[in-house]
């Protein structure tokens, strides 16, 4: 099994990254320079005004290190990547499958099944640990109903419709997962661009980080992250990465958001509200803490339900990408979504 490699996050404004022999040389406005050997790094995520030498970008492309630039609030700006990896036959198989309605519908249904299953699992965990509420129980029932009907779905539009419905129900039960009564963590549905409350700010940040990871996992196995099944093609949109994220969001992002709040690892004072736009963002020190929690979460180990291997959570996107590639090549009858236990 490939080891889980580390991701380098740069959040200090004015930092400049360059290549020095085999290392990433980080110059900070304050404090000593840092050199980090590139061999243990699988990605670099830069927030805000961070500079990077073209030479280092080229080096990262050559070493298959994904580089993503985000605004200081965590919105996606740009991504640098090298030549496509893997082989063209796999990509052709992917495009052909995406063009056949019932095949792509079956795959879309698989992603949605994974999502609903994992959302339901998140609710069940809360019921087990803290007792049930009417909203939790009701949504749990609705989700398990939908999971059953999904097995016969073969077209994308039905899958999309069910996904939308279920997501609405899930997010309406989401406030019950949060055990803190602090009004700063009140949640009344998902909003974004920009997120308007603390919970949405955390969710949005984690979704952005997950896109980075899933996208580089897909591209590492040679798939085209822009051609999806559940999400329609749109210029600049990593549709396949968004497809695969659906099933991983509850496991990676939602769960971490809830536990950061419940364990009081983030507090109301960690969030800043922009008076003009109403956008809520994380204050610098708190963002570091949140990023550290994200990295730590990826190192937790679990047993993958399909391959039965003991792995770090952060490798799930790679395993799912590989399983999808095997299915598209015809080595596997269906795509097994990641089902959280």
């Amino acid at each position, binding site marked *: 099994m490939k080891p889980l490699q580390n991701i380098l996050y740069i959040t200090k404004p004015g930092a400049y990254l360059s290549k020095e022999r*085999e290392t990433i040389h980080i110059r900070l406005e304050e404090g000593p320079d840092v050199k980090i050997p590139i061999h243990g790094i699988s990605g670099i995520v830069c927030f805000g005004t961070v500079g990077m030498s073209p030479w280092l970008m080229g080096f990262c492309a050559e070493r298959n290190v994904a580089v993503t630039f985000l605004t200081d609030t965590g919105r996606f700006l740009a991504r640098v990547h090298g030549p496509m990896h893997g082989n063209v036959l796999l990509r052709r198989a992917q495009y052909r499958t995406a063009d056949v309605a019932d095949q792509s519908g079956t795959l879309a249904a698989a992603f949605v099944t994974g999502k609903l299953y994992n959302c339901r699992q998140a609710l069940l965990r809360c019921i087990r640990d803290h007792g049930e509420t009417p909203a939790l129980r009701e949504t749990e029932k609705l989700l398990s109903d939908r999971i059953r009907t999904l097995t016969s779905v073969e077209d994308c539009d039905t899958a999309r419709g069910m996904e939308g419905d279920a997501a609405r129900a899930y997010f309406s039960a989401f406030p019950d997962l949060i055990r803190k009564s602090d009004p700063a963590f009140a949640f009344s549905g998902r909003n974004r661009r920009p997120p308007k409350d603390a919970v949405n700010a955390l969710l949005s940040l984690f979704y952005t980080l997950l896109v980075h990871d899933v996208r580089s996992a897909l591209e590492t196995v040679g798939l085209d992250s822009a051609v999806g099944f559940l999400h329609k093609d749109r210029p600049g949109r990593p549709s396949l990465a968004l497809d695969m994220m659906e099933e991983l969001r509850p496991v990676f992002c939602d769960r971490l958001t809830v536990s950061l709040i419940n364990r009081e690892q983030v507090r109301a004072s960690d969030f800043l509200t922009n008076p003009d736009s109403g956008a809520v963002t994380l204050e610098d020190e708190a963002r570091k803490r949140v990023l*550290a929690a994200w990295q730590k979460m990826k190192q937790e180990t679990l047993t993958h339900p399909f391959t039965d291997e003991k792995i770090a959570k952060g490798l799930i996107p790679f395993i799912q990408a590989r399983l999808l590639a095997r299915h598209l090549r015809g080595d596997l009858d269906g795509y097994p979504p990641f089902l959280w236990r």
Partner: protein
Amino acid sequence: MMVLVSYDVKTADIAGRRRLRRIAKTLEDYGQRVQYSVFECSVDPTLWVKLKNQLLKEIEPLEDSLRFYYMGKNWKPKVEHVGAKPSLDMDGPLIF
């Protein structure tokens, strides 16, 4: 796995100082300098073979010495740091 590399190079002449510099640079590519002539390298076995070969090419066996301490995978409880220059945990969150 974690390998601790320490070196001692005779720097009486120009050739010696050149060897010292080149060994330090090679080690910087793969590991973290924790003290002046001590590096911690977190490498997989293939990379280690490569690194070791590069180091062996640089030294003059009659004058210099290299020591490799193989710390294995579970090395963290075996290391304690006291005083200045705390090291960076390369496997932990890397946030700057």
